[in-house]
């Protein structure tokens, strides 16, 4: 369903329609390109709405099956930052692949990237790793 229908359903303020939205795949398709926001005559920040709906759908366990990969990606990404303070692309990608089972995806691309010097095998963390770990702890509890 297009985003106008997502918002229309929410305007009903009915639990039934809310559920239809939270279970939809639509809310996971937004690229946050912000084009709609910049052209909206009512300045609705649709990407922000979509962020919120995703959080809600995960929290309530209603997330669309196709969103699994995206969720796994975010987990892998955040895990990498929480550990090193910066993103370690290979580590993150391996983590993502294990989480999703897409073990063979982009295998050839990966080796090409490595040849071009675009992938670092070892993570380059920051000095003050404790600072970032604390940041995670204070804002999200103890989980990564």
């Amino acid at each position: 369903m297009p985003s106008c229908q997502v918002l229309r359903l929410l305007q009903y303020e009915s639990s039934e329609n809310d559920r239809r939205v939270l279970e939809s795949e639509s809310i996971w398709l937004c690229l946050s390109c912000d084009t709609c926001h910049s052209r909206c005559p009512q300045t609705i920040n649709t990407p922000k709405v979509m962020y919120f709906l995703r959080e809600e759908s995960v929290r309530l366990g209603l997330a669309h099956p196709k969103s699994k990969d995206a969720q796994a990606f975010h987990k892998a990404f955040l895990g990498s930052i929480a550990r090193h303070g910066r993103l370690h692309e290979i580590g993150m990608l391996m983590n993502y692949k294990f989480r999703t089972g897409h073990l063979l995806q982009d295998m050839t691309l990966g080796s090409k990237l490595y040849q071009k010097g675009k992938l670092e095998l070892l993570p380059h963390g920051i000095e003050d790793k404790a600072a970032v770990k604390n940041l995670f702890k204070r804002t999200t509890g103890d989980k990564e």
Partner: protein
Amino acid sequence: MRIGYYPGCSLTSSAREYDESVRAVCEMLDLTLVEIPDWNCCGASSAHVAGAELALGLRARNLALAEAAGLDEILAPCAACFNRLASASVELADAPDKRQAVSEVIGMPYSGKVRVLNMLAVLERFKDQIAAKTEQSFRHKVACYYGCLLVRPTKVAQFDRVEDPQSMDQIMAATGAKPVRWSSKTECCGTGLSTITRTELVANLSGRIVADAAKREAVAIITACPMCQTNLDMRRPEINQKLQQKHRIPVLYVTQALGLAMGIDPQRLGLQRHMVPVELPEPEPEVVTTDDDDDED
């Protein structure tokens, strides 16, 4: 002149050539880059999933570190990092309460004064020097591609105009390039989170951009965003498969294009790292000067 520098994670690995070319060009322009000590990842679009507080904290730490190092302006060449950091800077600028809260989270003070600039905003200031340092006139038709994150949302980017932006076109024109008038300047390449998770969507969206640039007879797509560059360059096999075409139009970072014009060694600019080989035709012959947007159609 000196300015704070926030390379961001991509520029240390998959977009290494952007970092290399930024440093090379800034050196030519006598602009000293002072890397923010011990910067951390801005959190990109993933931090939001774990909550707004974490997302803001990750970004604010970098601003606070910059401030502690005495930097009041920082350059974030990566469009995503720019967008994330700038939005934090704007959000915190007029909100003492929020600053107070975030200072506690990151364990550092922040007074809200650091301004975040993208690559184009910085280069715009050096248009005259760029023209002066151009050794080999870059007389090519180029498609300047801005993407989403440099101009939107207006409140955050505070830069150029939101539809049909002009800054990169003017920067490139300073080297003698002929920016084409095209309609995909600010179309989305499909990055979001789907670069890796939804490759089929990316090929579709990026494909339209490559096809449009090719149709307008551009010999290179110029960008200032690692995500855009990656999608248009690294995903080219998928794009060509989707379009049933063999587009070979290279995708250069704006700093790489400027570097070539200034006569910097291609190796130093990291051109060898591209997936689509960077092979530019002979520059177009110098003809009677016309307006930069002569009719393409």
